[in-house]
């Protein structure tokens, strides 16, 4: 069953207007997009670059993991299909992806609402929420954190996935990894401390 969660409403302003990304974004990005337009196999590069951002955006709005995965999957499939008609307008590519994501979230909520009608159904037009710079920064922060998990020492990474993704108990993780419960708690702490230190380092 899909989670019913009100979709944040906003003005129909272009998502890109609120978006200010780092300089690394705009320079090479146009080239990457155009490469993918002429050779769809190159879409993979864009996927790798933006997966975490799109997922972070979606997951912040739909709490249920399976829904977040469905919507994220829909976003990239749709983006791949619509790429030939995409026109570069100087707005970061991620803004386009997040606009697709915002619409996908609304459609998802509408489908859920059809199944379980409620008086506060979202309006019928597909409204992309305005992305404020602060929200964009929050998305960048989460996306960066997701990427950093991949670079943790192997056992810390394992604990993070077992604990936060699989939501296993400390006891279960201890059994699976052949460690004491105290050791697993220490690893959990060290992983979170590591990530915090790197996030702080990265933000200067």
């Amino acid at each position, binding site marked *: 069953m899909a989670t019913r969660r009100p979709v944040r409403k906003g003005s129909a302003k272009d998502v890109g207007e609120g978006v200010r990304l780092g300089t690394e974004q705009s320079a090479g990005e146009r080239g990457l997009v155009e490469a993918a337009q002429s050779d769809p196999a190159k879409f993979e590069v864009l996927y790798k670059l933006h997966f975490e951002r799109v997922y972070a955006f979606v997951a912040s709005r739909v709490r249920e993991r399976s829904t977040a995965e469905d919507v994220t*999957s829909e976003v990239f499939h749709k983006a791949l299909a619509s790429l030939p008609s995409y026109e570069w307008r100087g707005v970061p590519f991620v803004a386009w992806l997040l606009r697709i994501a915002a619409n996908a979230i609304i459609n998802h909520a509408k489908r859920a609402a059809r199944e379980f009608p409620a008086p506060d159904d979202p309006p019928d037009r597909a409204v992309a929420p305005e992305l404020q710079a602060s929200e964009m920064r929050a998305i960048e922060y989460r996306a960066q954190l997701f990427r950093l998990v991949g*670079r943790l020492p192997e056992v810390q990474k394992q604990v993070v996935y077992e604990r936060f993704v699989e939501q296993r108990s400390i006891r279960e993780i201890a059994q699976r990894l052949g460690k004491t419960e105290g050791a697993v708690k220490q690893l959990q702490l060290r992983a979170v401390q590591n990530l915090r230190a790197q996030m702080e380092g990265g933000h200067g």
Partner: protein
Amino acid sequence: MAKRSLALQLNEVVQWMLVSLRPRPEESPDRELASLTRVAQVLRELPREEFRVALKSDLQRRVSMSEGTAAVPVGTGETKASAVHYQRPGLTGITPYIIVRPAAQFIEFLKSAFEGVERMRMPAPDGSIMHAEVAIGNGAIEVSDGNEQYPTAPGAVHLYVDDPDATYARTLQAGATSFYAPTDDHPSGDRWGAVKDSFGNHWYIAKPRGWTPGPEGLRSVQPYLHLREAHKMIPFMETVFGAEAIGVHKSPEGIVHHATIRIGNATLEIDEAHAEFQPMPCHLHVYVPDTDAAYARAMDAGATSIDAPRNAPYGDRAAGVKDAWGNSWFIATYLGQ
């Protein structure tokens, strides 16, 4: 002491979070704990690695399918990447399945040479070993005495260890013979030695030097395939398993000197067979999001069937194919408990 209590405090917060999906109400906010809590809250939304990989291969498949064919339906169920935790816990995307006799003795070798930890052993009615798993580092090796369908087949495995010299010495004590002792002159740049055990398996024992682990981290156990016409193996694995070549070194004539190939969250290596490193057709165990689809793609790519997809009694959707080089691939999707 203080550190230990912080670990406990953080765990209480995490526990609360996972159960209630809400941050825990703060009574007296401790700054240290509060900043860790913020990180932990984000981790709750961490995407599943399997999902990221599966969606990528869905997209790749779609790109390769739409080349030549007309439109592919958007957002239909056939490209579902979600909701399947497709790897059996404890195993990665790819694990060497070594069938040698007597398997029990081989397990002892893994224990004494590589500090392997036996974590499962299933005897067959005749007392032989039907299936066993030995953990080495963060990877594993699967072991069996085999049967008619799956005969004896030693393989080559590349192990990353902390101390290659000590490990190398232990393998010799355990009955292996040396190809060469660990050296810093190996083309990989790693400190690297090579031995052959008494069952016929090759072990490449290495410590990474200046090698940057990929996003999946460093894998302790990597199957190593020496192949004739190794370059043809790369598209086979890409097509069938959604594999990704993450480092290919070729000669100007196109001979593969070395390639690292990623399948799911694990890697294997291949090279063109040379000198004493000749083809050793072996058994490999791969976890994929969709066994039936991978099996069908393998058939299309010219593999022969060993086992059609079926629900195995241990809870995997499983199939078996043999590639053009004679390696057999156990293809599996974990169906969950």
